């Protein structure tokens, strides 16, 4: 399944939830937030939100800024 992940094309092995994607990325414990198609997916819903073909996914964190 193809998704767009942080602006890059990404091929997933099969169906996946947001939680599974974060596990694959090694970010399951990182303080981060996830958007799918410009909509925030709250952490409580990561386990149930299934990704779909063509989804635009953003995984963001906090960085230094002013």
């Amino acid at each position, binding site marked *: 399944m193809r998704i767009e*992940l*942080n*602006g*890059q094309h990404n091929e997933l092995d099969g169906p996946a939830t947001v939680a599974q994607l974060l596990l694959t*990325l*090694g*970010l399951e414990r*990182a*303080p*981060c*937030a996830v*958007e799918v198609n*410009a909509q*925030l997916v*709250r*952490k409580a819903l990561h386990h149930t939100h299934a990704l779909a073909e063509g989804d635009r996914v*953003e*995984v*963001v*964190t*906090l*960085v*230094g*800024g*002013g």
Partner: protein
Amino acid sequence: MLEAANAEYLMSTHQPTINARTAPVSPALPPLRIGSFTLNSRLVVGTGKYRDYATMQAAIEASGADCVTVAVRRERLVDAEGRSILDFLPLERLTILPNTAGCFTADDAVRVSRLGREILEQLGNPGAGWVKLEVLGDRTTLLPDPVGTLEACKELVTDGFTVLCYSSDDPIIAARLRDAGAASVMPAGSPIGSGRGIANPAAIRMVIDRLKLAEQGGSAEYPVIVDAGVGTASDIVHAMELGADGVLLNTGIAHAQDPVRMAHAMRLALDAGWHTARAGRIPRKLYANASSPWEGVITHIPGE
């Protein structure tokens, strides 16, 4: 005349006269209240542009700030070094203020605000409740887009955020943002990172008067924070002398040759400016006014 106009809200927070003989250190400033938030330091500092995290940590410490700003950005999925800025911030004593830097539309600013809140909720930091709203016009000036800022402010207030609005130094848009529910309006001293200080002091003064003077529909308690453009400590003194409640800066510390010492200087400047604003400066005069008495001089005075 400006001094007289500002007396009302300056006096509203007037402290007893300081006895210099018994006050070897400055008395503590009253805390800064922004919506339901209370900050012990009126200096808010950014966390960007430091050469390393250790310098950032030391500079934050030296600044005395208990609130720091951060930005929301993509996780680096390829080059994940594993080091997060969050590992270098004392989250137990700092309130994190997430910004929407890099947003050029109201929609993007609302998205980024929600993402920042999501992360801070996971961290259990009180900063989850607020946001420093920036909707910028373009990359060259980084000046606020007033229309987009107002639009985003309204939506974020509806969504329950305490919104601190980065704004132009324009009293009209400042009042509009306040009316839209902004908990604080933060006029730019000069463009972000420019180090030009308070480019238009009269405009900053008008923003402050509009938001804080009762006769202009303002309230002495409404917090106005000068944000952006600070290049050196005297810029902070200037902002505070104009009646600001606080100052937010990043580059002026982070890119100083000695950021930790500069952070210390900025902290002192904020105190100096606060007290200056309330001490009642002398009027400016064109000609001199001798400090030593004329009576009893033994000299020849030209023209007499």
